[in-house]
């Protein structure tokens, strides 16, 4: 173990706000978000890139923040679940999950919302196969996915044309 721990300055934009922080090179993006920036809506479920509870958007792409170093996010634009609200109102995707009973314990939900966001950004009318593929990297242990499929279909309908 080194006597002093090196820290690296990075700049990034998180939910539209510019942040300048210094991090240890080994700090994971999820650790920075949760511990450094107090954005605890991003969760850790598996530590090995399987479950997707830590999914955030990095430059528009859904990524698993447990497998990305914070230094890799230098100059990046990050959106977490806290950034989904629009003018204090839930995002239509969030509303659709609520209305479709697409969550139970809610631990996986932030990651699923962001994977859905990415899906609907590039595909306004996904079919069932595309929906399943888009959230294949998001594990939910409560819902059996059925109501999540319904939620994403509803979100697609509600965000059509936006």
């Amino acid at each position, binding site marked *: *173990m080194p006597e002093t721990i090196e820290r690296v300055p990075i700049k990034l934009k998180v939910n539209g706000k510019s942040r300048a922080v210094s991090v240890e090179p080994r700090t994971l993006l999820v650790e920075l978000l949760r511990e450094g920036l107090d954005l605890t809506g991003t969760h850790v479920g598996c530590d*090995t890139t399987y479950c997707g509870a830590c999914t955030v958007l990095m430059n528009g792409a859904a990524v698993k923040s447990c497998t990305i170093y914070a230094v890799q996010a230098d100059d990046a634009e990050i959106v977490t679940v806290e950034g989904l609200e629009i003018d204090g109102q839930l995002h239509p995707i969030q509303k659709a999950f609520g209305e479709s009973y697409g969550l139970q*314990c*809610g631990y996986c939900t932030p990651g699923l919302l962001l994977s859905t966001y990415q899906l609907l950004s590039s595909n306004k009318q996904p079919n069932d196969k595309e929906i399943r593929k888009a959230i*294949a990297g998001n594990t939910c242990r409560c819902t*059996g*996915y059925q109501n999540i499929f319904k939620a994403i279909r509803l979100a697609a309908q509600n965000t059509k044309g936006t």
Partner: protein
Amino acid sequence: MPMLGSSASTLPRPKPCLESYARSQAVKSNRRPNLSSKSAQSPPCSKIRDYPLAISTALYQGEPVAAIVAESPSLAEDAAELIQVEYESLEPVLDAEQALEDKSILHQEMGTNKVWNGVFEYGDVDKSFQEAAYVVHIDRLHFHRFSSTPLENNVVIAEWNPKDDHIYYSCNNSFPSFAIQFLAAHLTVHIDRIRVQTADIGGSFGIKITNYPQMAVCALASKKSGGRPIKWVETRSEHMTSSAHGNERTFRDTRVALDKDGVITAIASRHIDDCGAYPRYEPLGCVIWSQVFPGVYQFKNARIDFTQAVTNKCPVGPNRGYSRMQHLWFLERVVDICAHEIGIPADEMRLRNYIQPEEFPYTTPNGCVYDSGNYPKMLEIAKQLIGWDGWKKKQAELRKEGRLIGIGIGTTLDSGTNNFGQSQIVNPGAPFSGNSQGANCKLDIYGEVVVAVGSCPQGQGHETTAAQVVADVLSISPDLISVRTGFDTERNVHTGFSGTYASQFAVSGLSAVHGAAQKLKTEMKRLAAFVLETKEDDLEFSTGAQGPEVRANSTGKSINYWGLANIVNVNSAVLPPELHEITLNCRYIWRAPFKVPDKQKKYGNLTLTYASQLHIAVVEVDRETFIPKILDYVAVDDCGTVINPPIVEGQVYGATAHGIGAALLENCVYDAVGNMLTSTFSDYTPITALNMPTVRYGHIETPSPHSYSGAKGMGEGGAAPIHTISAALQDALFSNGIIIEDSFNNADTLFRAVVGREIYQADKLVKLDRRV
């Protein structure tokens, strides 16, 4: 906040003989709390010393041997790497049957690996076999080890205040009233000085009941640090190797007696349960299964010799369907194998053996009272939903092409609200019986309706349903009711059974809420009658221009909730002495109407309600890859009167995913020397959106006469998919001389069975003795 990291044993059954803590500070308590309990465990396993950190011998890979406190998790991990432990490796015991040979004893103080043994015998078994038209012998069946792995791992924050020995816990334990009973005794702290709070919990499925060893370590670490709060956030690998797995069970030497029509008249069998290295919630599982002793079937005669053993694997804990699903899977395997051997279709075999609708309430051979149900009707609905005749026709056509298509039925039970008196069957000295739940319903100072419950929900909708119940009692909108959920000892609404487990909130939790709301309503009536100068039967509860109110029909005068609360809380001089007992703050404890079971005969009502599930699956085994694929899936549920349809449907889907995952993907695998090979999600592969089929849902309602609302607990789901998929695979592969011997099946096992002929061979596993 300082973080706790741990160093876990890396070898199965290692014996640490040198501990070098280098620059790290290890937590070593002088008192060394032993977390086994004479209340929970019976001799000989009550002699086991179950320390939260291994003292001289570690018994399974992943068992914590040291704990480190640091300012961050990464620093704690750095320090953990500096701990050097030299292990002397001992011969691991990984199979429960092998463990019972006692060639290598895990717990010297116990002197045996046998945790518990008992014979559950009812009716006249020997006579039934003498008179049988058919006797089917099944050599071995095996229910595998898996865990429902909540997505949020275990988390504990503990703060031991050195000034008054008060311990504060913020954690996600899902049965805190049980945990504090262990912790208070072994940390030698008065139970009233342990405060436990839970908030929203990221799933438990029972697995978070047994994290009290880590809760003990956190408290001791806090004490050692002078009272600083200590946080422990479990990693996924820690969770997989050392939190809790579901019980593994082997069924040996099963004999089934049937009459000439294929009606089962008796079953005799030996069941061996593997509880891992330490019996924690155990040996309770040695009796819990008998809540569903005959499953959904009519047979009256049975002899089950049940034994539990320790092995060098992760300790088990209650896992969704705890101890009953293993037995229900066994019964469904028996029914399908017998049907095939005798030549009766699987659906017809069930209809001949089901308990019939007119027989409810039905008393089982061991004294349990099944409240209500209609299994033939559920089968009929499920067959309609799946398109049974169409699939049968298609199956016959595809089989001609050599395709391996199977259609399987699984009928199961979800017994809820258990009688803790059954613990006395495995431990006659256990001071537990009955079941209870607490709730509080009050008008706060400004007239807000506030409800508190002793449960710790994880998305089961307790807030929603509790508000519904109170709203019904007071005739107001559920939106006007604040429900305080999450467990908190200082709310004073818990009993020793409070928590969220064992499919019971709809009955125990909501009965307590209902009782508290009724008490409040009674007090509100008395008070309103005094204020409005009328009789109580003249009053009506409704919502007026000034919010919820109580109105006198005769005069039209009313008082709203603020007015009532004002009088009691801040304007009490207007109250006459005879109304001083009114508090508008009503605590109610609901108690289940149970008796203590007969310990000798192992007889009594062990559970209050019996929800049932009937699933049908169509599965194809790929002829090239042997990958099993679900082509169609139907789930029909009966949980009595449905309180909230989307919640019930959501629970059914969730339990179905757990079952399908367990049947095809999720298996806790150990190698020959006890290394856990599935210690990450990448290896354990929880079910995803890609391999979860579309589930078609149906339901019936047979109201329970045992609950005030007719509802039954239903959260566990009875693991119906495991039975159903085993049945479908069996149907697909019978003609290949295969018996589905194990509850876990993937391409590898099916290939080894069909091509390798290494396992599952019908000629070795099953024998039919035809006497007609």
